[in-house]
């Protein structure tokens, strides 16, 4: 028992004096908890957070106003009013918003036109061309994850369809009322015709009955008691036409499927996990005396580190190729998912790959330089990668994070890498569109190596 207590005391003292270890044990999980919770809360539109949606109302009439009112009342969406589709497209391409709704200029008019058609046709759905339907256009961020798109579009479509149905039914009711009132007036007028009543045979209280009947008809003709159509009246056909457009493209096809987003995202995630072997190898050299031996030999630290950079750069490229292989050949065989679309700018892709790899290597080098033990580097490194991935939009689009976290995410190298890759895979961007991210990634690598060299020289 005495021995066990001694060992316990020793381990406790070691832990108490290991501040980085304590930070990993307590602060890191707390940070993770906060970020994951916020990310999950914001991933799906909720009444608390509200998903920001741009609205351009070109209709300026009943349907447009109703759609906006209903979206606002739903509390699931925070509407941002813009004036033109071009403004909306630019705001989405700038990454400020991810969704837009464009209500066409004659939407109410086209909806009302349906009323003229519907009562007179037996099968209106087949008779009305989709071009004559009220048009609503959904505008997407090309880099939006498909799952998020689906999660947002479904409630949007539901709210818009219900708005349209209500507007249509209100108008339909009014039209039917007008029609019925007119027919009732004609009928009442005909009953007022003396010849008509003279032909009615005599019977007890005849005149009293005719009088009551005429008054009743007159009352109906004045609009009383009114006509109420059933609330759950449904149409077999669409009453509005919803177009889906990718911002910055004429295509309605939503290009990024899950693979289009996830392969670059998870390649980045995997790349940054080289922190464990890379930092581990640096720490092993420091702690096992091999680094001291190397310093007595005619070799510089820069040469030692350059060799590591080259090796891990190769590893990162292999990771990318492997995940691409999975995306092209394995995933489509495992389920109903189309292979990743490789129609991208290859020079830009190569540069982004190298820059992202270097940033990941820089991260591994800096962790290896400042961590004292292998386990410290492994724990700190892996937890940091998860945090950087979470705030960097690897699992949940960064735009869905709370505003404060969105600002924090701007310092995540994974965010820079993800933005560069999604820019290429989803928005067909070339080097010109992603150069700022490339500079940030390479800058991060250079700063990491410089810090590392300085720290080694200092030690």
């Amino acid at each position: 028992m005495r021995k066990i207590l001694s060992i316990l005391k020793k381990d406790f003292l070691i832990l108490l004096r290991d501040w980085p270890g304590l930070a990993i044990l307590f602060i890191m999980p707390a940070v993770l908890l906060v970020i994951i919770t916020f990310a999950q809360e914001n991933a799906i539109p909720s009444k608390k957070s509200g998903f920001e949606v741009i609205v351009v109302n070109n209709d300026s009439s009943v349907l447009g106003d109703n759609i906006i009112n209903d979206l606002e009342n739903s509390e699931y969406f925070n509407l941002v009013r813009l004036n033109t589709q071009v403004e909306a497209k630019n705001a989405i391409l700038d990454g400020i918003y991810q969704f837009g709704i464009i209500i066409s200029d004659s939407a109410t008019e086209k909806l009302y036109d349906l009323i003229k058609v519907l009562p007179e046709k037996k099968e209106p759905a087949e008779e009305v061309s989709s071009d004559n339907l009220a048009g609503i256009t959904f505008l997407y961020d090309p880099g939006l994850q498909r799952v998020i798109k689906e999660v947002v579009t479904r409630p949007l479509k539901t709210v818009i369809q219900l708005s349209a149905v209500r507007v249509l039914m209100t108008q339909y009711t009014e039209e039917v009322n007008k029609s019925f009132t007119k027919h009732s007036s004609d009928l009442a007028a005909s009953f007022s015709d003396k010849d008509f009543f003279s032909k009615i045979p005599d019977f007890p209280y005849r005149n009293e009955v005719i009088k009551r009947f005429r008054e009743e008809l007159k009352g109906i003709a004045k609009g009383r008691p009114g006509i109420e159509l059933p609330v759950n009246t449904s149409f077999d056909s669409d009453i509005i036409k919803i177009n889906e457009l990718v911002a910055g493209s004429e295509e309605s096809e939503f290009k990024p499927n899950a693979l289009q987003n996830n392969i670059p995202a998870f390649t980045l995630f995997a790349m940054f996990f080289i922190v464990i072997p890379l930092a581990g190898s640096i720490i092993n050299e420091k702690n096992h005396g091999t680094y001291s031996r190397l310093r007595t030999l005619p070799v510089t630290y820069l040469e030692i580190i350059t060799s590591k950079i080259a090796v891990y750069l190769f590893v990162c490229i292999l990771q990318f190729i492997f995940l691409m292989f999975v995306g092209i050949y394995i995933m489509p065989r495992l389920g109903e998912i189309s292979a990743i679309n490789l129609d991208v700018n290859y020079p830009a892709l190569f540069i982004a790959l190298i820059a992202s790899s270097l940033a990941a290597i820089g991260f591994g080098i800096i962790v290896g330089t400042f961590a004292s033990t292998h386990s410290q580097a492994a724990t700190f490194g892996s937890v940091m990668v998860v945090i950087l991935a979470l705030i960097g939009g690897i699992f949940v689009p960064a735009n869905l994070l709370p505003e404060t976290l969105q600002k924090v995410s701007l310092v995540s190298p994974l965010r820079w890498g993800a933005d560069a890759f999604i820019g290429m895979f989803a928005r067909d961007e070339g080097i010109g569109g992603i150069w700022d991210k490339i500079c940030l990634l390479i800058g991060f690598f250079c700063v990491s190596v410089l810090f590392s060299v300085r720290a080694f020289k200092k030690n």
Partner: protein
Amino acid sequence: MDSNPVIIAKNLIKRYKGSDEDALKGVNLTVQAGEFFGLLGPNSAGKTTFTSIICGLIRPTSGSVDIFNTDITQSYSSLKNSIGLVPQEIALYDTLTVEENIMFFGNLTENHGQKLRSKKDNLVRLFNLDEHKSKLISRCSGGIKRRVNLICGIIHEPSLLILDEPTLGVDTQLREMIFEYLADLNKKGTTIIYTTHYMKEAELLCTRVNIIDHGEIIADGKPSDLIAANSGCTDLGQVFLKMTGRDLRD
């Protein structure tokens, strides 16, 4: 013995950051070419600090060290091919084999290609490592690791060889083998600086020893001269105890 100094240390002072005491307190020391020089001292006396300075691993706080007439505080890189270090700890890569470790460290010096392979083969044979050369270091015994550790420090045939407790934890057979090899190397002209806690080793091998304690050189001379100069002492161990005392050190 040539009067051709390989190392000249003048008023060498080293104070570590955060310490309020100098690890070296103005050490003056000269090592001549071809000497088998023993640096003896109890724990924390300053041996490792001194060898670390002459290996270029740490910088002195003040003072100067010339090695092969080059001030190492100004330029060290040009000396690296001429200096070999055999550290006390096993400074090898666990996941490389015996042969791969030797070749790796050898390749970092001026040696390479067939010349290096030939040297490696000779040393592997000399230290009876033929049957172990393909083993990972992590799977080797302590004795094998100690031999490989030594080979990696001498593979480039340095003119100045610094050995820090090279026989720590090895059996008698291997110790004898190492002695024979080092003596032979010294005869061929290699200057050797040898730090050890084993006074018998120093007495047997070294042509001259310095005893260092509390960061100061307190004795300098041939082992036989030091024994003779200290009345009542019959071996270097007794001289060492007489000069450094029997108090336990940190």
